[in-house]
């Protein structure tokens, strides 16, 4: 076979394997990936700057919408920072309700990931099974918060809705059902040869590399790095719960699967403890509208890893600066390392294995490598002109169609 040298393939921003717009430039030699680079920012909306122009209460809802999957994580991390600046003593019951929603969110996120991972390896049955069971936890979240996604449970000084005993009963029942199903998935993933063979040795990050590349969350724990903010720097009331950090020394995508499944089981036990030990009392304290000047950094273990929020207040009802470091940003650096020396066909599952959330990541990121030099690229106008000429030379002409489209647009 002739050697074609290095071939560069752009993947994204629209690609069937990516549910969100993100662009990867993959360099191939034969079937093997020799290099990969990431281009971010398609999802950049400017949330951090927008947060400076809105009040703290408005910001809760804006910050939650950084990401639809870990919305409670962002909301809680932000509100913890605000409460720390204001010196508010949040009631214990509110802390427990926040933890409850946080763990339910982790369950929904990990089940979602399991399905997506199944889809990426061509195991669509697993997608359908895990998403069917995920509806159980979605129902619970809807019962607790009134919405399936974007729970909006937090308010400065506490939570907005209480959990009564009938609801607690429903939650326990739902968790029993989920635990049973998760045991089945653990059995499938640890016994099914096709799954093990497909995921083992793919996207390897060794223990040393995991420490060097500063990966976080399940990606780090699958490389044997026992790091979990819930244990290392307990927030809310996590120091009152009994749980262990799930780790694995597989260092590959298979390890990441096992860690997430193990964490599901831990979350079920935590939800039971939270419901059982839920203290009585108020769910909120009165909070001032203007937050005194000060700054705070808040860490939160989101389903994908450590989420960091920094808030600076200046004594008005609006923050002076909000900064978010989402877990995917930490893990994304490791993706090009993971992809190296893998087959092109492994690309979707390797990217999916960090459970990327680009809407979390693309808030304010500007990366410019000094050594990258000018890239030979077509700008947008040239690319379009090239496409039009390409098809016209083959007898396909969209000129008339585009004109009618423009007319349709003008009518609107």
């Amino acid at each position: 076979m002739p050697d074609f040298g290095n071939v560069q393939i752009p993947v994204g921003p629209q690609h069937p394997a990516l549910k969100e717009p993100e662009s990867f430039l993959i360099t191939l030699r034969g079937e093997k990936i020799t290099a990969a680079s990431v281009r971010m920012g398609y999802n950049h909306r400017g949330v951090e700057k927008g947060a400076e122009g809105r009040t703290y209460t408005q910001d809760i809802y804006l910050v939650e919408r950084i990401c639809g999957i870990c919305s409670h994580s962002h909301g809680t991390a932000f509100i913890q920072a605000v409460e720390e600046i204001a010196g508010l003593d949040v009631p214990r019951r509110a802390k427990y309700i926040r933890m409850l929603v946080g763990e339910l969110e982790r369950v929904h996120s990990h089940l979602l990931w399991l399905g997506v991972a199944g889809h990426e390896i061509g195991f669509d049955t697993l997608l359908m099974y895990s998403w069917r069971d995920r509806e159980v936890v979605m129902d619970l979240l809807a019962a607790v918060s009134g919405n399936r996604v974007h729970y909006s449970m937090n308010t400065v000084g506490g939570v907005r809705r209480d959990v009564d005993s009938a609801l607690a009963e429903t939650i326990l029942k739902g968790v029993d059902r989920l635990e049973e199903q998760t045991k089945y998935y653990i059995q499938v993933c640890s016994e099914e040869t096709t799954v093990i063979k497909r995921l083992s040795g793919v996207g390897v990050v060794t223990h040393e590399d995991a420490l060097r590349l500063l990966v976080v969350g399940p990606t780090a724990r699958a490389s044997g790095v026992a790091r979990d903010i819930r244990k290392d720097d307990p927030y809310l009331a996590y120091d009152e719960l009994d749980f262990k950090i799930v780790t694995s020394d597989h260092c590959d995508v298979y390890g990441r699967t096992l860690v997430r499944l193990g964490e599901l089981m831990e979350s079920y036990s935590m939800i039971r403890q939270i419901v059982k030990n839920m203290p009585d009392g108020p769910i909120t304290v009165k909070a001032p509208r203007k937050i005194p000047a000060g700054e705070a950094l808040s860490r939160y273990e989101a389903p994908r890893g450590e989420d960091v929020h920094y808030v600076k207040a200046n004594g008005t009802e609006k923050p002076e600066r909000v900064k978010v470091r989402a877990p995917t940003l930490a893990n994304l650096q490791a993706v090009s390392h993971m992809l190296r020396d893998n087959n092109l066909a492994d690309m979707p599952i390797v990217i999916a294995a960090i459970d990327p959330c680009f809407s979390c990541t693309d808030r304010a990121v500007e990366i410019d490598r000094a050594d990258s030099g000018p890239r030979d690229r077509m700008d947008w106008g040239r690319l379009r002109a090239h496409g039009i000429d390409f098809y016209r030379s083959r007898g396909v002409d969209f000129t008339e169609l585009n004109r009618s489209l423009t007319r349709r647009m003008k009518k609107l």
Partner: protein
Amino acid sequence: MGAIQRIVQWSRVKSPWVIHFNSGACNGCDIEIVASLTPRYDLERFGVLLKGTPRHADVLLASGPVTRQIEDRLLRIYEQMAEPKFVVAVGTCACTGGVFQGLYNVKGGIDRILPVSAYIPGCPVTPNAIIDGVVKLLASLENPPKKASAG
């Protein structure tokens, strides 16, 4: 309408292929779109099939406000789809820009860029709403609403 057109119309309404594109959404609507394709809601019973490329799709399910970066890409994806094509704005952000209205990198709703056939509001939209919106779109294809006379 001739027999051939009727068959084409029938097959179009009975099996609309959709492409899902996130034009800057927070993921909330995107996971609900996937949820509506999975067993509990099962949009596939109306013949709706999710496709990977715009060239195969009849309906563009676009979620999220349009960011400046994504604008050109969204237009390009729309141009790649074969006629007749329809755009469904999924979620409040896709309809109007929603909570992201006024942020410096956000253009606003999908209808700033593309002609939209159906709006499905909600933050995020529930799968029930998505199904309702898609079924209404299909019904309107079957019995196209009479064009309002000019004037």
